[in-house]
């Protein structure tokens, strides 16, 4: 088992390396210096305490969407709908933030709970469809993504219209997850209390998966649905539960993004964090702590690309291209695995 884990880590690292190489080739191809590009990319993410704060705030949302995808994966479900769950969770949090008039602590707790429940409800539909009618969750979560997209598109201007038609009113400072002491500590960056939520979620999911009966049952359903059923586990109930927990995590991601990182909801955007979450989960080998590490890595890429764009002529989309390439290499990890095996054989044969 230990050797296998190491191999997983190795495959992850090689995927990242190949993704970065692809990025370097692109930079060179468009007449830029890749070394300079990467220097600015990583400096942009880590150069000073403020930028580290921005990196962590991006990572916060990625940790939660990554956890969402990873948790569903462990149960044998593919949650491609984290974006939609995040949007709806964000809408719930924003609605609370804009309309609840109460002390700060209560507003924040209710907003976060609303996002948690909203995301969970959004995932309840695919969960039920899967358990009851065996509708594939990939298709149903994609549909739910676009239903969320259009729901936000019409509800935000109708109920929470702000300065423009395309965004909501800004939530007040009291209803934001940004906290003065944290903002000051990290030199006016976008870091917010969501980070602690994300860390708690990582630990909670790790405990659920590794230390509880529920986690065992969920993983058993993921390995082999039929043998789990034969062993007397309520697989259908577990599918629904797993989907709802995954959705709730993505809903939390929505809270950290829309009332933490940002203070308005823009319409007409399906957040890419949901899809980046797939990359985070894959790279983190679907383990909670792996998700934590890979989310921070992607956070650096995300927050460093703007600085790189300002200092060089490399378009910021290079960051997204690198992330997408890493997913592709992670998906085709068979190739990497074969390469590792043949190299190992050669080394052994040489002795």
């Amino acid at each position, binding site marked *: 088992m230990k050797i296998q884990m190491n191999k997983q880590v190795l495959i992850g690292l090689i995927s990242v390396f190949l993704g970065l190489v692809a990025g370097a080739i692109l930079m060179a191809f468009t007449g830029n210096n890749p070394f300079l590009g990467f220097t600015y990319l990583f400096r942009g993410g880590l150069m000073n305490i403020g930028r580290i704060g921005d990196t962590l705030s991006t990572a916060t949302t990625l940790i939660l969407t990554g956890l969402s995808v990873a948790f569903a994966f462990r149960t044998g479900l593919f949650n491609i709908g984290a974006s939609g769950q995040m949007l709806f969770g964000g809408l719930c949090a924003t609605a609370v933030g804009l309309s609840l008039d109460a002390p700060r602590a209560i507003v924040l707790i209710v907003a976060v709970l609303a996002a948690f429940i909203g995301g969970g409800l959004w995932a309840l539909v695919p969960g039920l469809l899967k358990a009851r009618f065996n509708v594939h969750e990939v*298709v149903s979560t994609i549909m739910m993504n676009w239903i969320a997209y259009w729901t936000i598109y019409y509800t935000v201007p109708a109920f929470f219209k702000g300065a423009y038609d395309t965004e909501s009113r800004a939530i007040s400072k009291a209803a934001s997850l940004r906290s003065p002491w944290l903002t000051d500590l990290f030199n006016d960056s976008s870091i917010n209390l969501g980070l602690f939520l994300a860390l708690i979620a990582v630990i909670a999911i790790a405990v659920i998966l590794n230390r509880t009966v529920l986690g065992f049952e969920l993983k058993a359903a993921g390995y082999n649905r039929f043998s789990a059923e034969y062993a007397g586990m309520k697989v259908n109930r577990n599918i629904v539960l797993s989907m709802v927990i995954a959705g709730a995590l993505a809903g939390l991601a929505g809270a950290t993004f829309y009332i933490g990182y940002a203070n308005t909801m823009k319409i007409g955007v399906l957040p890419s964090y949901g899809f980046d979450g797939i990359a985070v989960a894959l790279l983190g080998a679907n383990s909670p702590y792996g998700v934590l590490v890979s989310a921070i890595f992607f956070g650096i890429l995300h927050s460093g690309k703007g600085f790189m764009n300002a200092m060089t002529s490399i*378009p910021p989309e290079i960051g*997204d291209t690198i992330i997408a390439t890493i997913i592709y290499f992670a998906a085709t990890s068979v190739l990497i695995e074969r390469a590792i095996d043949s190299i190992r054989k050669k080394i052994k044969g040489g002795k």
Partner: protein
Amino acid sequence: MWEIISKIFPYAIAFTIPLLITSLGGLFSERSGVVNIGLEGLMVVGSFTSAYVISILQPIMPEGAIWIGLLAAMVIGAMFSLLHAFASINLNANQVISGTAINMIAGALTVFIARTITGSGNIHITSGLTRFNIPLLSKIPLVGKLFFTQTYASTWLVLLILLGSWFLIYKTAFGLRLRACGEHPHAADAAGVNVYFIRYMGVMFSGAFAGLGGAVILVTYSGEFNGSVAGLGFLALASLIFGQWKPLGILGATFFFGFASTLANVSQVVPAFKVIPGIILKVFPYVVTLIALIIFSKSSQAPKAAGEPFEHGKR
């Protein structure tokens, strides 16, 4: 009422056609046994390719530029889809992950290149296809007004491809093999069919058609590449399911969805439609697809082996 319908009909058709051709591409891929949720990304690639080619050629040869652009979109779309084909056919990769990667690579890479070339993420073309009336046919009462006035040449091209595809899938040896690979790849293999080859063809068809779909959007109603096709690729996927993986089924489904989306778009301007809230028309295709999935869950016509990797030695 009649006047309004006949007025929005050309828009509904213009909106339907890119959906139809992309969905048809998805049909080829899924019927061969490869799930392709990268249709969205492949459309973006087609939109980018055609925008780039047309914007370069238009000053030199205003007549043929658009058609060369459409052709280029198909070729590059097919080549780009090879990434997905290689991952899912040769490497037994998770096809959903690979498809997601295609969507993300396409969205990021095309804007990256566009920015490098033009400085902004957008590429404009000076003019698209012009609408025209079909002589004689447009004079037919009712039908003529709806279907044969204000049409784009690309619409007829796509309908021709649909007809050809129907023939290819149901009336030729290739079509039989394609369907067999999506249902029972091992039986097809035992009968001497090269499953890998057929699946490659299926995926490349989907790349070419989705590329054409993205390009048609550009040359008909958008006129500008901006790095996204606003979820139309996923709508095409929904149409594929709602049309139950059949060419005529997806014709009906895409027209249905295209008409609903157009109604939603014009409902702001046309007072008669204000009674139906836009949100209902917009989420309608997705909700209908979910309901269709429930209804068909017992008797789904989905290709049985779609999404399953084929290994030659495995029985």
